[in-house]
Structures are given as structure tokens and as C-alpha cells.
């Protein structure tokens, strides 16, 4: 349950203030807007990567602003997409002469607001492109990938977009690579318990003892189906059976991996689960590159986890390996 707040109505504003106060080494507040931008931006000649969405998913989204990652994050209220006005203002703060890429999870509210802002920028002569993250295999069948929602795969798609833009790629190229990364990213998750919005006393959903939800959303949405609670080893197989069924054709047998905790399922548990994921992927002949077992795309303190795979090729691997630094994710050469 969310416990720390002053007035729930001020939650977003206060969290942005606190975030900027804590991580002024990476970000500063965008004046008169609900968002943050990298301290070194905007950089002339560099494509601006702009991410965002509702709050409640830290480190997504504001935690990914910094060198090698995003230039700005637009921050909505808890689980609510930011308004198009805020997206527009944040864009104006960081867009340079190389255009901007919007990258965010595919949810109705985000699509509506980012699209309206993009139209407004385009009408003003700015080149703004959009790549929506659609990694969640539970949310639509494979032939409707464009309908799928974005969950923890955000992490990889943002990383590729950020690395491509950081090395000076053109907007065409940043868009192409980001789209390519999204096309090769798949995620699937399970939930064991819901979360509670600030100021509320009832969780958004509850999971009966001894059961779990499959195909969770990262906004406290219940899963798409329900099953008996399983052991870690069984859950590893369940996640991988689903993800491996969509291993892309011609995909080489290497993948970047994120085992993502939603907030209340802690690191030690994730490692126990990872042991069996690692074993199974080795059996399947998949080489795992730079696995991350951590909380990256959370859902307040929801219980559960999701597994994301980015099926790598050489160009994606090079971008994934590039260093980056931000409040929520640092990848150093050290």
C-alpha cells in the first residue's frame, strides 16, 4: 500500500520536485511543465528522445533521463498519461534541429496525448516521430502486435533509442532502430497481488491466496487469466514457453534479458526464479547477453514480475552495450 504522501492531489508535483532535488546531477525540471530533461540538453544536431507516461513505474520514466538514454521524460499523474499540453511543452524544451522521437508504452491515453502533441509540433514544422512499445504478448495475438501494450520491454526499447541518438544517428535511423528493437522485444508477466493508489485504501485488484494472474498490466490492471500459484521453476517454464513461442524467425540464438520486479516481489525471489530461467534458456540454445534482474518498470508496489527478451543482432547488441547514466540505470565501462 502506498503510505507516504502529503495531499494525494499533490503527489505528482511533489514527486517531481523530490526527484529533481535528488538527481540534479542527471536532470533538471522543465520550466512550467510536468517533466524533466537531461542536464546537458538540448544538444544541437542530436535527435531528442522523449519518453513518458503515467507515474508509478519508477525508474520508468524519469529515471531514464541522462546521457546515452532519454533527453526528456513527460510525467503524468499516477497511472495517467501526461496531457498533450505537457508533452508539447516538454518537446519544445528539448527539441533541437534534428527532430524528436517519442517513445512510450502503447496505451490508449498515452497514444492520444502524445499523438496530439506530435500533430501540433508537426504543424509548427518540427519533425517528430513515434515508436510505441508493444512488447506484452499477453495483450493481443501475434498477428496484431501493433495492438499490444508496452510493459517492461520499455527498458530495452528506450536503451536502443537513447544509444542511437547519443551517437549522432539521424532521426530516420533512430526511428528505424527503435522500431527494430521494439519488433524484437517480447515480454510476459505474472502477478501475485495488486497495488493501492496514493490516498486510496483498497487495492486495485486482489489475487486470492494460492492463485496468480497471468499477463498482468503495469498499471495495476489484473491479468488476462488466472491460475493456481506455482513454484519458481514452474513459473520460469510458463514465462519461457510463452516467450519462446514467439522467437522471431531467423533470430539468432542470443537475447538481452530483463527479469523485472513489479515492486513487491523482491530481488532474492527474482534470483531464485532467474536460476531456472537461465537453465532453461541454456537448454534451448539461447545465449543471454547482459541480463538484468531488477526493478525497472514497476507498478507501485504490485506483487509480480515480468520477463522481457530482446532478440539481438549485431547492430542492436552494439547499441545495448553503449554506456549510459541516469538515476535509474547506469551502465559503465568499468
Amino acid at each position: 500500500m502506498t503510505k507516504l504522501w502529503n495531499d494525494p492531489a499533490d503527489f505528482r508535483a511533489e514527486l517531481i520536485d523530490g526527484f529533481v532535488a535528488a538527481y540534479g546531477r542527471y536532470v533538471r525540471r522543465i520550466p512550467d511543465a510536468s517533466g524533466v530533461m537531461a542536464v546537458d540538453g538540448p544538444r544541437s544536431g542530436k535527435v531528442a528522445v522523449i519518453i513518458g507516461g503515467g507515474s508509478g513505474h519508477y525508474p520508468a520514466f524519469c529515471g531514464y533521463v541522462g546521457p546515452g538514454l532519454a533527453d526528456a521524460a513527460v510525467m503524468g499523474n499516477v497511472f495517467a498519461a501526461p496531457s498533450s499540453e505537457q508533452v508539447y511543452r516538454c518537446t519544445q524544451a528539448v527539441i533541437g534541429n534534428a527532430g524528436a522521437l517519442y517513445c512510450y508504452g502503447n496505451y490508449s491515453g498515452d497514444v492520444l496525448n502524445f499523438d496530439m502533441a506530435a500533430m501540433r509540433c508537426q504543424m509548427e514544422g518540427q519533425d517528430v516521430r513515434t515508436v510505441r512499445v508493444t512488447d506484452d504478448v499477453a495483450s493481443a495475438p501475434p498477428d496484431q502486435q501493433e495492438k499490444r501494450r508496452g510493459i517492461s520491454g520499455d527498458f530495452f526499447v528506450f536503451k536502443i533509442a537513447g544509444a542511437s541518438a547519443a551517437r549522432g544517428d539521424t532521426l530516420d535511423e533512430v526511428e528505424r532502430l527503435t522500431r527494430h528493437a521494439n519488433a524484437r522485444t517480447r515480454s510476459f508477466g505474472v502477478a501475485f497481488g495488486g497495488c493501492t493508489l496514493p490516498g486510496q485504501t483498497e487495492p486495485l485488484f486482489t489475487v486470492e491466496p494460492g492463485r496468480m494472474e497471468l499477463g498482468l498490466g503495469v498499471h495495476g490492471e489484473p491479468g488476462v487469466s488466472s491460475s493456481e500459484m506455482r513454484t519458481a521453476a514452474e513459473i520460469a517454464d510458463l514465462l519461457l514457453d510463452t516467450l519462446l513461442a514467439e522467437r522471431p524467425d531467423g533470430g539468432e540464438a542470443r537475447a538481452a534479458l530483463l527479469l523485472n520486479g513489479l515492486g513487491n516481489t523482491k530481488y532474492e525471489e527474482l534470483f531464485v526464479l532467474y536460476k531456472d530461467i537461465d537453465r532453461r534458456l541454456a537448454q534451448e540454445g539461447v545465449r543471454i547477453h547482459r541480463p538484468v534482474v531488477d526493478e525497472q518498470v514497476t507498478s507501485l508496489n504490485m506483487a509480480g514480475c515480468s520477463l522481457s527478451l530482446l532478440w539481438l543482432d549485431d547492430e542492436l547488441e552494439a547499441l545495448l552495450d553503449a554506456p549510459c547514466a541516469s538515476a535509474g540505470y547506469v551502465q559503465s565501462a568499468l
Partner: protein
Amino acid sequence: MSEATSVETMRRIIRQALASMEEHADELGRLDAAAGDGDHGITMVRGMKAAVAVLDANAPDAGALLSRGALAFSDAAGGASGALYGMLFATAGRQLGAGPYATADVAAAMRAGCDVVMRLGKAQPGDKTLLDALEPFLVALDAAADRPLPVAWRTALPAAQAGTAATAGMVASCGRSATLGERSLGHRDPGAVSLTYLLEAVDKVIGEAESDR
């Protein structure tokens, strides 16, 4: 209705809409939590508060007041409902302009807003969204276009209510709850419910204004 009366009526409508959203916030949240992310009540209240906060600025006419409120709503609310309600009422307000309004003027303005919502949101009636309340309401309002606005509005309300009730039997194919497919069955769509409360709030204000005469 003089222009001053129209502006004052619009102020009262917006205040009444906020009161209604506050009254029903928990219900809207619960409905949204059933298949979505549970924030619809919070979002509507936050948005309506922002709309009320811009009421004091002196607006030239009722349509401008509605548009201005809609933009404030949209920015504060965020989410799908912020964008859609914002476009619905901003468009309607722009088209309304200065009063006095015949019923047909109001129906045409709302229809223009509805068209924008459908174009932006790419949903159709039957997809279990607020359109399932809005569309039948507009059809009924059109049918009563020759009657005075308060009467026509009240006559059309049951269509919105019936449309909303019908959403319980629909499978969502738009918005957050689309993913849940069959699992969204049995719960009314929160956006249809909130839209109906908004229409009822309008009725309350213009109906009373009517009886005040």
C-alpha cells in the same frame, strides 16, 4: 436566454459537474479497477477541479467558457479521458460560440465534438467506451431538436442511461480494458458511466433554470 444568463448557466453546469464527479469518484474508480487501472474517478475529479478553477476568468461567452474549461480539464486530467473529454467539450464549446442556443445548435455542437472523439480515439459505438452513452444520447437529442433545450435534454437522457447499462454486456476492444477481453464482461464502462453523470449534471442545472423562470 440572454448571453449573460448563458454564461452563468455554463458556470453552474461546470460546478455541478465537479460536484457530481466528486460524489461518484469511488464508484468510477471501482469500475475502472475491474478491468483497467482504477484511476477514472480520481482523474475526472482532478480534471473538473481544474475546469472550475478557470471559471473566474471573465469569458466572452458560454461556448468560450466551455472550451476553456475543457482545455484546463484535459491538461489536468491526462489519460485517455483527459484527451477525449477535452476534445469533446473544447470542440463543442468552439462551435457553440455565443448564445442564445436553440436545441439544434447544441446538438450540432455536441455531434461535432463526438466526431472528433471518434476520429482521435478510433473507437466505434459497441467498443465499450463513453461513445456507447454519447452516441445514443445524440441520436435522441437530434430527434427532439424541435423542443426547448431543457425538455429535449431530459428526453434524451434515458438513451444515455440505457447505452451505459448495455456496456456491461460488451467486451472491450479499446482502451486499457481491451486486453482483458472476455474478462471485461459484466462491468459497465467507467467512461460511459461518467459521461452519463455529466449529462445528468447538465440536466440538473438547465432543468432547474427552467423551473426558476
